[in-house]
């Protein structure tokens, strides 16, 4: 077993005062962002920020498995895609009126569809986790990647729902009382979901379950010795993580009114991993920072040159070689061994 290099949330000895205010300042900036974008005449900034917020939910969900549980999953794009397809399929059936599989009624309501997305991705994560968690280390990385690829090919072959071309939806899912067609409204809905999700994960990090997970990550044998069912705890973390990623996928499907197998391409799994590590695995706000930083960097580089990956690739190599702890640990005291 390899020991992940960073401890999970630890109570730091006297962090600098600005750190306590940083999350609130960040939230304030995010709330002000679309108004600023409108004032500057840069409406595209709001859609970019919506993408960042949605991917921040996905990265934060992956962090439960990766940062807290030490499970290096290279297959989380599968859950992202399954969540998106759950929304896409239900919306299609909701619009046409014909029930899915003959007995599940379709729906065009955001709340219903996002719950379905979490349920579907949770079920898939449960099945994949039950198999993949029989292994560890490099094998776990390879197996999660392989299962994600299997689902990718499944949806490519699923001609009933577009195959390669995916599913397009006529309109965004509805949330009673709100005009979801408006990009600014949608941004605030996404931001609210992110805030709720972060609140839940902060509770989770400090719960008994979160502490057990951290313990298992640091020494599985000791936790077994004191009577913890390590396999079940890990599995539960994997499922929760998959459900959150599915929620993000579903939200992204509603946002773009489009789902395709590309959402579960293996590079998407890689990007989610990068967001978590760049921002700081095992921290609550790190993955959010990482998602904003990576998408921002990609957008900047893409505006500069078509071949932006020639720059991003070596930047990632450098990050992996030199950068430890992530953005969220800047300004925090060095943690002891």
């Amino acid at each position, binding site marked *: 077993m390899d020991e992940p290099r960073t401890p999970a949330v630890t109570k730091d000895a006297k962090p600098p005062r600005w750190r306590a205010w940083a999350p609130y300042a960040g939230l304030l900036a995010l709330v002000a962002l679309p108004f600023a974008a409108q004032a500057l005449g840069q409406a595209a900034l709001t859609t970019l920020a919506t993408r960042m917020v949605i991917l921040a939910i996905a990265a934060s969900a992956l962090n439960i498995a990766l940062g807290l549980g030490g499970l290096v999953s290279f297959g989380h794009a599968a859950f992202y895609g399954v969540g998106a397809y759950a929304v896409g399929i239900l919306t299609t059936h909701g619009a046409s009126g014909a029930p899915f599989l003959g007995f599940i009624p379709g729906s065009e309501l955001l709340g219903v569809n996002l719950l379905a997305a979490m349920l579907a991705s949770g079920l898939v994560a449960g099945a994949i986790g039950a198999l993949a968690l029989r*292994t560890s280390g490099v094998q776990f990385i390879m197996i999660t990647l392989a299962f994600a690829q299997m689902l990718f090919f499944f949806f490519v072959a699923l001609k009933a729902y577009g195959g390669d071309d995916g599913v397009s939806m006529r309109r965004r899912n509805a949330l009673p009382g709100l005009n979801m067609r408006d990009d600014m409204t949608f941004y605030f809905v996404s931001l609210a979901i992110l805030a709720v999700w972060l609140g839940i994960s902060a509770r989770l990090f400090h719960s008994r379950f979160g502490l057990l997970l951290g313990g298992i990550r640091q020494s599985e044998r000791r936790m077994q010795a004191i009577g913890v069912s390590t396999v079940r705890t890990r599995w539960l973390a994997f499922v929760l993580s998959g459900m959150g990623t599915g929620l993000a996928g579903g939200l992204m499907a509603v946002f773009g009114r489009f789902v395709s197998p590309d959402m579960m391409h293996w590079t998407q799994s890689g990007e989610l991993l990068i967001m978590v590590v760049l921002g700081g695995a095992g921290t609550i706000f790190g993955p959010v920072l990482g998602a904003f930083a990576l998408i921002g960097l990609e957008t900047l580089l893409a505006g500069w040159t078509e071949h932006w990956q020639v720059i991003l690739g070596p930047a990632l190599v450098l990050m992996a070689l030199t950068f430890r702890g992530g953005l969220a640990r800047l300004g925090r005291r060095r943690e002891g061994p």
Partner: protein
Amino acid sequence: MALVLEQVLNGVQLGVMLFLLAAGLTLIFGIMGVINLAHGSLYMVGAYAAAFVAQATGSFLLAIPAGLAAAALVGMAIEYGVVRHLYARDHLDQVLATFGLILFFNQLVVLLFGRQPMFVQIPPALAGAVDLGFFSYPVYRLCIIAVGLATAGALFWLIQRTRLGMLVRAGATHRDMVQALGVDIRLLYTVVFGLGALLAGLAGLMAGPLLSVQVGMGEQILILTFVVVVIGGLGSVTGAFAGALLVGVVDTSLRAFLPGLLRGLMTGSEADALAGGVSAMGVYLLMAIVLLVRPKGLFPAHG
């Protein structure tokens, strides 16, 4: 019967290609403990270098050393520049760094050669088919099988019978002891990485005339190689060989026979759709079954 034999041969041909990649991947992991996602990029480098030289000179004979050398050199450069610094790090860092390398190499190839796939002619001496009694089979594919099996034999000889192989085996199980006995372990690592890259380049240059040489070809086969390595047992070359042949034959036969079988049970279009899905997922299901029965693979390394 002829059709079945032909498909089995196709499966073996895919199998030996997968073995060339899986052997390198599993050796590198077994000895250095590194997961190298960029292994597929080395396959791509071999294929592009060979395709470029073949198009420029018109000679496949010149393309062979070009592909091999390019892959081995790029491999050793990667080891020296990046992977060497990752040996003591956890797998997450290795995944991120080698993922960055994939992005870099893929985009570099787009810069140099464009997005259009390159096509390589089968060398004239190997074009055509040979009569194998009751069916005929392309000579070039037979050649791939022969080269693959010969390489496998040479690799087993190298590992089991030579001094380098002895160091490789010892390095896999007792790394510190080998170092303490005065072996330059860093050189050994570079050599093994270069050997793995050479094998990947060989697979790439042989694949050129069969498939189109294009960006992303490395990742497609890399993920299949992961399946092979997991089925065979991580770190075991014997396992890689068995896993590669199994995956090659199962994948090819599912694609060849499943549509026909299902068409007997349901209507044509439904059968084709279902068969397409199941055969694409087939090897992953095989991996799931193997994992259920033997979580460490068919031939677990180190007991």
